[in-house]
C-alpha cells in the first residue's frame, strides 16, 4: 500500500466518529494532566519566581494571562477556519463539529485577552482602551467569533449552519495576519511582538520560561474543553447508530 493511501485511510479512520470518540478519551486524559502540571508550574514561576520587570514592576505579571490568551485566540480561530474549510470541501462531519465547538472557547480566550489587556493598560499606558490598529483588529476578532456563534444558532439544520459558519470563518481569516503584523505595519500604542526573532527573545529567560508553561497550559486546556464538547455532539449526531446505543446502555450500567 502506498504511503498516500495509508495516510488517506488513517485520515478517514481518525475522522470516523466512533474511532474519534474512543481515542478522544485517551487524548483528553493526557491533556488534563499536562494542563494541570503546566498551570501549576506557570503560575508558580510567573507569580512567585519571576522577578519584577525593570520598567513595569510587578504589573507585567498580567502578561502570563494576556499573552497565552491572545495567542490561543488566534490559534483557535485558525483551527476553526481550517476545520470549517475541510468540512466544506470534503463534507467530513467531525471537522464541522470541531469547528463549531472551537468557537465558544476561542471567544472566551479573545474576551480574556481584551479584558486583561484593558486592565493592564490602565496603570501602564494611562488608558483602558485606545483605538490603535492592534486593539481594533483584535476587537474585530471578538466580533467574528460572536458572529460565528450567532450564525450557528440561527440555522435549524446543523450541516447548513456548519457550511455558513465555515464561509464566515474563512472570510474572517484575513484578519489574523492583520492582527499579527499590525504592530509592525502601523505605529501603535501596543508594544511590538515579543517573538519577532526566535533566537533573540526580548523577554528575559527568568520571565520567559513561566510564559512558555502558561502557553502550554492554555493549549492543553483548549484540547480538554474542546474534546468534551466534541464528544457530546458526536453522541447527539450519532444517537441512532448501534454503537452509540450500545454505549448508552453501558453507561447506564455504570451509573446505576
Amino acid at each position, binding site marked *: 500500500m502506498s504511503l498516500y493511501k495509508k495516510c488517506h485511510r488513517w485520515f478517514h479512520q481518525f475522522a470516523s466518529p466512533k474511532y474519534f470518540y474512543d481515542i478522544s478519551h485517551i487524548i483528553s486524559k493526557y491533556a488534563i494532566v499536562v494542563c494541570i502540571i503546566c498551570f501549576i508550574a506557570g503560575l508558580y514561576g510567573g507569580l512567585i519566581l519571576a*522577578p*519584577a*520587570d*525593570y*520598567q*513595569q*514592576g510587578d*504589573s*507585567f505579571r498580567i*502578561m502570563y494571562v494576556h499573552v497565552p490568551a491572545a495567542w490561543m485566540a488566534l490559534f483557535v480561530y485558525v483551527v476553526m477556519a481550517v476545520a470549517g*474549510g475541510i468540512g*466544506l*470541501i*470534503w463534507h467530513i462531519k467531525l471537522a464541522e463539529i470541531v469547528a463549531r465547538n472551537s468557537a465558544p472557547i476561542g471567544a472566551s480566550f479573545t474576551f480574556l485577552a481584551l479584558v486583561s489587556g484593558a486592565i493592564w493598560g490602565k*496603570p*501602564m*499606558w*494611562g*488608558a483602558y482602551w*485606545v*483605538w*490603535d*490598529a492592534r486593539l481594533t483588529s483584535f476587537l474585530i476578532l471578538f466580533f467574528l467569533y460572536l458572529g460565528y456563534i450567532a450564525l450557528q444558532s440561527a440555522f435549524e439544520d446543523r450541516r447548513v449552519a456548519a457550511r455558513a459558519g465555515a*464561509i464566515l470563518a*474563512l*472570510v474572517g*481569516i*484575513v484578519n489574523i495576519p*492583520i492582527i499579527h503584523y499590525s*504592530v*509592525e*505595519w*502601523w*505605529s*501603535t*500604542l501596543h*508594544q*511590538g*511582538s*515579543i517573538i*519577532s526573532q526566535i533566537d533573540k527573545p*526580548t*523577554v*528575559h529567560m*527568568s*520571565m520567559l520560561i513561566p510564559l512558555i508553561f502558561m502557553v502550554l497550559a492554555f493549549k492543553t486546556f483548549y484540547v480538554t474543553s474542546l474534546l468534551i464538547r466534541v464528544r457530546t455532539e458526536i453522541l447527539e449526531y450519532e444517537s441512532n447508530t448501534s454503537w452509540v446505543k450500545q454505549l448508552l446502555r453501558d453507561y447506564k450500567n455504570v451509573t446505576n
Partner: protein
Amino acid sequence: MTPRKKRIVIVCSILAGMALAATLILTAFEKNLLYFYSPTQVIAGETPTERSFRIGGLVLNDSVKRNTDNLEVSFVLTDTVNEITVTFEGILPDLFREGQGIVANGKLDADNVFKAEEVLAKHDENYMPPEVAQALEDAGAKIPESHDAAQ
C-alpha cells in the same frame, strides 16, 4: 469538474478574494491607520491643523520641566531626528519618564508647541529584571530599542 474540486475552487477563491480586498482597503487607508505621527511628520506639516491628532516619540533626557504651582509639565518629544515641545496639565501614567516612548493627543499651537490633552505611555517589548537592566547599562550596552518607538 467533480463537485469536490468545485468546492476547493470556491474556498480558494474566497480566500484569494478576501486577501485582495484586504490589501486594497489597507493600502487605501494606510495613513488613517497610523495611531500617531512622529515629530518629523509634524514639522513637515503632514498633520491636521484644525482638529487634534496624536504625536508619538521618546521623551528627551533632561527635558522634563514641572511647574511647582500646578500639575503643568513640559517636555521635549524626539524621534532622534526632530524635536517638538509638548505641554500637558494632568496626571501622567506610571511609565512616563525620560527616555520613554509616549503618545500624546492634542493640538499644535501657533508657536509649534504641542498642547496635549492626554498623555499615554508606550512601552516596548523588552522585559527583564532590574539587575539585568542595570548590568546592561553598566556594560555600556544600550537596551535594545523597540523598532517603532524611535520610528
